[in-house]
């Protein structure tokens, strides 16, 4: 077997020195659980995001964009596959257990997938603002992540998320250059999605956050959130849209945008599955899983025990 560490202090020295933990290492149980929970939430979010994206395939305007949405849906479901595998290998839960927990509302996924995308403008706002937020977070994790298998999978996920973000930017620019009605549509979507996208980063990191201490994440939530604000506030304003933040101000001295106080109650509600669209989303995902059981059964040569399957 691979490496082991006599004490947590030894293990933390190893991590502080830039060490990468591999799946067969005898890692401390607390680290195993922390890295597992982080990857499980990422996997769940990819799956829930992919299902949302799928809903838009028939409604996407134009063949070129329809094909791109189809590809993006496959990407997201693919990311789910890769991440559930990395998570399952940690031995905390099997893939089936993770899926069962997700569909029963027992595990978490990102706040933005607890809201409903009503218009095409919403879909554009998600592809642009939310995918960018996810990308900023993932890049920060990838940079110094101490868990090797996750770091390696993130490399390819980030490459594909980059395509999604550029696609979102492309769509946003088309709308920005469009008719007054198109611009009004996107402004409404911006009003709905600006805050959920910003809240994706979470509240300021706590000083004792183990995800930071164990180099699972490498940057604090508030740093990542600020990076997003400094990039998107001027960009959206540049296209003539209004940022839905009444207390937004430009701090001339620090040369940065300040969005004002952030209300974290909506984020907390989504974490407890109490977001505006949480119940419907989870139910739809669970129904989808049941409706497709016959496909999994057929693929497993009718072996019901292997359905969905773990080990």
């Amino acid at each position, binding site marked *: 077997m691979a490496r082991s560490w006599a004490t947590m202090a030894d293990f933390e020295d190893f991590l502080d020195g830039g060490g990468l933990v591999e799946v067969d290492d005898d890692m401390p149980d607390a680290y195993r659980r922390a890295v597992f929970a982080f990857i499980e939430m990422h996997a769940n979010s990819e799956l829930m995001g992919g299902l949302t994206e799928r809903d838009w395939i028939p409604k996407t305007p134009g063949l070129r964009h329809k094909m791109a949405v189809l590809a993006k849906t496959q990407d997201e479901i*693919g990311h789910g*596959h890769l991440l559930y595998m990395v998570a399952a290998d940690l031995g905390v839960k099997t893939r089936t257990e993770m899926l069962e927990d997700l569909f029963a509302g027992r595990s978490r996924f990102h706040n933005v997938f607890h809201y409903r995308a009503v218009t095409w403008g919403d879909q554009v706002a998600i592809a642009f603002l939310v995918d960018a937020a996810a990308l900023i977070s993932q890049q920060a994790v990838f940079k110094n992540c101490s868990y090797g298998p996750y770091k390696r999978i993130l490399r*390819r996920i980030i490459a594909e998320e980059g395509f999604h973000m550029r696609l979102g930017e492309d769509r946003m620019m088309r709308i920005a250059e469009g008719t007054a009605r198109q611009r009004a549509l996107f402004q409404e979507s911006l009003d709905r999605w600006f805050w959920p996208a910003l809240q994706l980063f979470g509240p300021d990191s706590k000083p004792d956050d183990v995800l930071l201490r164990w180099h699972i994440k490498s940057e604090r939530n508030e740093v990542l959130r600020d990076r997003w604000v400094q990039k998107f506030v001027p960009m959206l304003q540049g296209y003539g849209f209004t940022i839905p933040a009444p207390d937004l101000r430009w701090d001339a001295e620090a040369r940065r945008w300040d969005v004002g106080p952030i209300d974290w109650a909506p984020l907390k509600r989504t974490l407890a599955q109490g977001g505006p669209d949480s119940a419907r989303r989870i139910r739809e995902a669970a129904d989808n899983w049941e409706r497709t059981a016959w496909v999994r059964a057929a693929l*497993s040569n009718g072996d019901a025990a292997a359905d969905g399957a773990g080990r």
Partner: protein
Amino acid sequence: MHVYEVFTKRDGRDEFRHVGALEAATDELALVLAREGYLRRAEGDRLWVVRRDHVIVADDNFVAPNADKPHRHHDGAAVAARRKASRQSQQ
């Protein structure tokens, strides 16, 4: 279902490289999932999948002895010094 390890390679470049793993019901489906999961944008043109329980894994203790065989190396320092001394004596 079985767990498969996935290896990919770009023609003319690099060795086959381990890129990750996946779960699939059959060998054929493992290939499909590997292609759609790991080679979505022509990141390679060769693909191997190997069932994880078919991979023969060496124990660390088996591999370890070769980390301590300095006599299998020669860093050239001793030769370089002699060459230099030889050149200087001929001048």
